[in-house]
């Protein structure tokens, strides 16, 4: 089955990438953009979903700075 994991910076943690994108947008003529946050998208083919939670906690996200969510997509 295919699993999708979304990893994003924890609230309150500095997100230099998001900041940089936010600053770049007006120069390209895009206005009206508020907060921008950038994280990671991880897509995995797994045999069972049992290990996904463990993988997220131990490897795919850094609990100090990031939060994650995951779902089975197919």
């Amino acid at each position: 089955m295919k699993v999708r994991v979304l990893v994003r910076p924890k609230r309150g943690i500095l997100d230099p990438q998001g900041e940089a994108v936010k600053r770049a947008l007006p120069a390209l003529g895009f206005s009206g953009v508020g907060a921008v946050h950038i994280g990671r998208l991880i897509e995995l083919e797994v045999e069972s979903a049992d290990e996904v939670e463990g993988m997220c906690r131990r490897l795919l996200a850094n609990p100090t700075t990031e939060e994650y969510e995951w779902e089975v997509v197919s």
Partner: protein
Amino acid sequence: MRIGVTVFPGSNCDRDALHAVERAGATPVELWHAEAELKAVDAVVVPGGFSYGDYLRPGAIARFAKVMGPLEEFAKGGGPVLGVCNGFQVLLEAHLLPGALLRNTGMRFVSRRVRTRIEKTDTPWTALYGEGETITLPVAHNEGNYYADEGTIRELEEEGRVVLRYLENPNGSANDIAGICNEARNVVGLMPHPERVSDPALGSEEGLRVFRSVLAAAGAKV
């Protein structure tokens, strides 16, 4: 004295660290990532580079390498461990040190020399410096912006665990932190590269005392 240097796939300052260890007067020992043994070393350096390409997050994959098991035990048993740059990132991922290293606020790789101050000399890796001494060290990284929650930062400061501080902050690091140690003070992580300024042929030897310190500390114990 034998000092081990770990080699992960993608480590690229391993040879530099081995060279600095040798110049300091210790026996350099290569510790291959896939072997779960420390070869009876007296101290370990986790060198810089891009272990596993920095893919996912710097240090995230390396911290699961086989060599890390015995290394973690060694560190918890009080053995001196130094992480430099990517090595610092590995030690953070392995929870041997608190906090994390985020992207530089400038969003660019920074490679330059920066002035730093030795804040603490009661670690095995800084013993030969003077407290408050200013040294110039090279930095070269994408993710050197030290972050920890407020409580942790306060704890680090109060317990005197900020070992090295930038006088010219190149990456946005909290409290200008360039290096920290664990509670027991035997595990130190530094973002700048002391091994690159450990040879007069390259114009500076200001970093060599990092490696000499651990030798001196061991000598004192024996």
